[in-house]
């Protein structure tokens, strides 16, 4: 599903000088895999995830997603592909404070031009699936951290992406809440969704089927 070849991410430090965040990344991830990316702070984990999620365009090398050569796409085409195939879960949940749970779930659909009735049906299904129907009119500030991340995951998968990217999804949760989220991820993966998560936690990584270690921008162990 994902194929990275000689992928680099660097920042200019002046004339002919660069700071490398990722170096010579070669990686294949098959459909249905649950991959955990680990490594110390500054290793380039989140950068790799944002490149996979097409949030970052300043990289060199080759990136193919389901045989589509992302490196040949224009930003607008990348955005369209991202909307079709990728969901993203953030460590800080990043729910929109001024929207209710229902509206937070609805918003990715509105950006994908779903009709009002389709949106209503999908949001209702998702609320039901995640058992948060009773919370649909609440604002994020009225939810616990775990509940917020549950909504965050629900929002990431509501448009039925093929690939779910999660940047330290349990990083701000206490252990029991973290376990709930990871169980949810496992369930999603069992249903066929490809998941790539960044984590510091061995326990969270253990839910995955494969671990990739990054250090100073290099893949050091797989």
């Amino acid at each position, binding site marked *: 599903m994902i194929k990275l070849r000689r992928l680099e991410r660097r920042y200019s430090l002046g004339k002919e000088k660069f700071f490398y965040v990722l170096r010579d990344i070669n990686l294949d991830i098959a459909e249905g895999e649950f991959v955990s990316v680990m490594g110390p702070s500054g290793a380039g984990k*989140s*950068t790799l995830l*944002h490149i996979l*999620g097409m*949030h*970052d*365009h*300043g990289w060199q090398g080759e990136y193919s997603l389901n045989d589509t050569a992302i490196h040949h796409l224009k930003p*607008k085409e990348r*955005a369209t592909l*991202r*909307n079709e195939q990728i969901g*993203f879960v*953030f*460590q*800080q949940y*990043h*729910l*929109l*404070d*001024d*929207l209710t749970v229902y509206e937070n779930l609805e*918003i*990715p659909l*509105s*950006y*994908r*031009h779903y*009709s*009002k009735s389709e949106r209503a049906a999908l949001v209702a299904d998702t609320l039901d699936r995640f058992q948060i129907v009773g919370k649909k009119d609440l604002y994020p500030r009225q939810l616990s951290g775990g509940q917020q991340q549950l909504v965050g995951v629900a*929002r990431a998968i509501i*448009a039925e992406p093929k690939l779910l990217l999660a940047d330290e999804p349990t990083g701000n949760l206490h252990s029991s809440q973290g376990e709930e989220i990871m169980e949810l991820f496992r369930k999603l993966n069992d249903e066929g969704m490809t998941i790539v998560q960044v984590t510091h936690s061995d326990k969270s990584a253990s839910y995955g089927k494969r671990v990739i270690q990054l250090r100073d921008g290099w893949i050091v162990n797989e």
Partner: protein
Amino acid sequence: MIAEISQMLDDIRYAVRQLVKHRSFTFIAVFALSLGIGANTAIFSVVNAVLLRPLPYPDPDKLIVLRERSHIFDNGSVGYMNWLDWHASQRSFSELALVRRESFNFSLGSGLGSPERVRGVRASSGFLSVLGLKPKLGRDLSAVDDVAGAPNVTLISENLWRHDFGASPSVLGRRVLIDGLQREIIGVFPAQLQFGRNPDVLLPLSEIAKEPWMLKRDYHQGWAALGRLKPGVTMSQAASDLNAIAIDLEKKYPESNAGRRVKMRPLFETTVGDYRASLNLLIGAVVCVLLIACANVANLQFARALARAREIAVRSALGASRWSIARQLLVESTLLAFIGAVAGVLLTVWCMDAILALTPPNVPRFHQATIDWHVLAFTTFAAVATGVLVGVWPAWKISHSGSISVALHEAGSRGSSDGLNRQRMRAGLVVMQAALAIVLLAGAGLTLKSFWHAQNAPLGFEPHGVVNFTISLPMAKYKTGEQRSAFWTQLLQRVQNIPGVDAAAISSNSPFDDTENDNFFHVTGTLPVPADQRPTAETSVVSPDYFRVMGMPILRGRGFGPQDVPGEKGHSRSVIIDESFARKYFAGKDPIGQHIDDNDTLDENAPPMTIVGVVPRTRNEAPGELNVEALHLVEEYLLASQDPQPESTLHVRTALSDIAPIVAAVKRDVESLDSDQPIGEITTLDEAIASSLATRRLTMVLLGAFAVLALVLASVGLYGVMALTVTQRTRELGIRMALGAERTRIFKLVLGQGMSLMGIGIAIGLIGAVAAGRALMSLLYNVGAVDAGAVLIAVFSLLAVALIACCVPARRATRVDPMVALRTE
């Protein structure tokens, strides 16, 4: 399409929620925008009424006013005899009417109700048809009514018809008393007729067509010709046509027509053209105010956008396109502008009465300013434009704010701060506000100084304590000079005996009464002057006490007295000249006892007049008008008993502050002399002078108000930016203080940053102020385009307000606790 609408509705719903949630922001932004849009709406409603609304006649752009141009007057009145020749020979106009504004004594009949003075028009037949109007009832004037000896007829206005005759169709054939003559009402003209400030009666030429003064070709009695261009004929073609006729007339009648040409202007321009420059100035001012308000709100939007960086990054990560994000921000700013527009319209409704109260009553169409659909359409456009202006830049900058991952990372960390570019942009907006404020303040300063000069221009007489009564004796009733003289003499005797009256006099050409009376003259004994170079004097026919009433000293010779016996054929009349006359025509000589030949008399063999006195030069019109001052006309005063006029102003000098008893007593005296004789306008001379300055006052007050608005908005903008800067620099300030910076140093640091922005804004604004001053020149009196005083006051006003706006955040900066600031980070 439906999805787009649904998306738009979602955006609006979300925008409403955002505005409700952030009430302080919404309040300040709406306040600023309502001031900007409200000021624009108010001025546009006036511009719409005065300059944009077409005249209420069919094909109004075809209507042309023709006047005579001479070596003295660029826009002089038309001689009746010349008009007859124009009318007969011209080929450019489908109709060419002769017309002048007049006031008439009007009553339903002798003994039927109080006589009143009404506005009217005297015109040749074809006047209504030139305008494209038809009588609402009855018939129009016909060619028969132009000829002497025709029956005395009149048309009355629709307003008078409804008010005095209950809109009865049987009004036709009824007789009313107008200027001493019973006249048959033959028609009712429609309310559309605004020529002559909504006249109430329309009289024909017949009764004056054979008057000797009408038949004298160089007599110009305030007439204008009004024509409707034939299809396909341009105004310049018509001008060539009429000037060819004028050249023929010059050859035929060199004594009267030498150098005389035809001047043409569209009726629309003669009606409102004089106010175009003032209104353009005000439009410029309110656009500046709106730009300042926009800059203010854009800066607030930037400040908010900083707080919303996370939201926008998340939206991007969730799949929002740049357009989606930009559209959301645009919807918010447009909604904000619409609320501002509604508040602005309410503000306009509230202050419109105040603006109209300042508007001089004799200015055409100002008082028709209303908030109609044109104004609302303009306001809607202004709101949308403002919304886009306020929103588009922040929206563009935010939606292009780099990679999503960086934005998310920054949003996730604390202490997110403005980028350098955005800081520069915010600073640039403050500089722009300061620059625009300086332009407005300097402009307002110039108009203020100009007004002060105009108000304090030397008058040559003492107006305070003088009450004016306009009285016009109908020629039909007061046919002879003796009759007129008897009336004035008796009236003056009675008025002088009214308790509280110090002195009373009459004059035919009262200062500041909106009329002029100019006459050619020739200094007896000097070489004859070619007809097209004859000198002209501003002439007033006065009673002996006139100079006492006006507080004018006799500089040389004597005033009028008993020795100046009433004029008889062959008897030299007395004349008093002003000092400029004496200087110009009797330099180095004593003018007393000298003689001048006068064109004013119809007696071709009248002996020259004898100069008996010299008085100060007076100003009879508002400064800046095309008046005595501008035309360098000298002044002469003739004696009323030697040349009794039908229309004069009674001047009464009193020390009483309450003039009501005097007004009542004068009315009684006039009525006791002639119960059919109304008094026209009653006003103090102070009021007349103030009224003559009303347009200047209106411009000054509005420009001043807009300048103050600009000052307030610019200072609020500066405060906002400085307050945000201090918030963003809390950590830096904390570190500085932890490293030993004294509080005064921190205060100066913040203050210096704010005042530097002001300094740059002022420097740029000064360049704009010079340009604005040049553009203002035509509206200024005795003030240059660059006036050091006005500029200094503008700069110091802005600096003072800016200092206050910077002091509050600077003071807050000194209170930063280094420990708290560093812990916050």
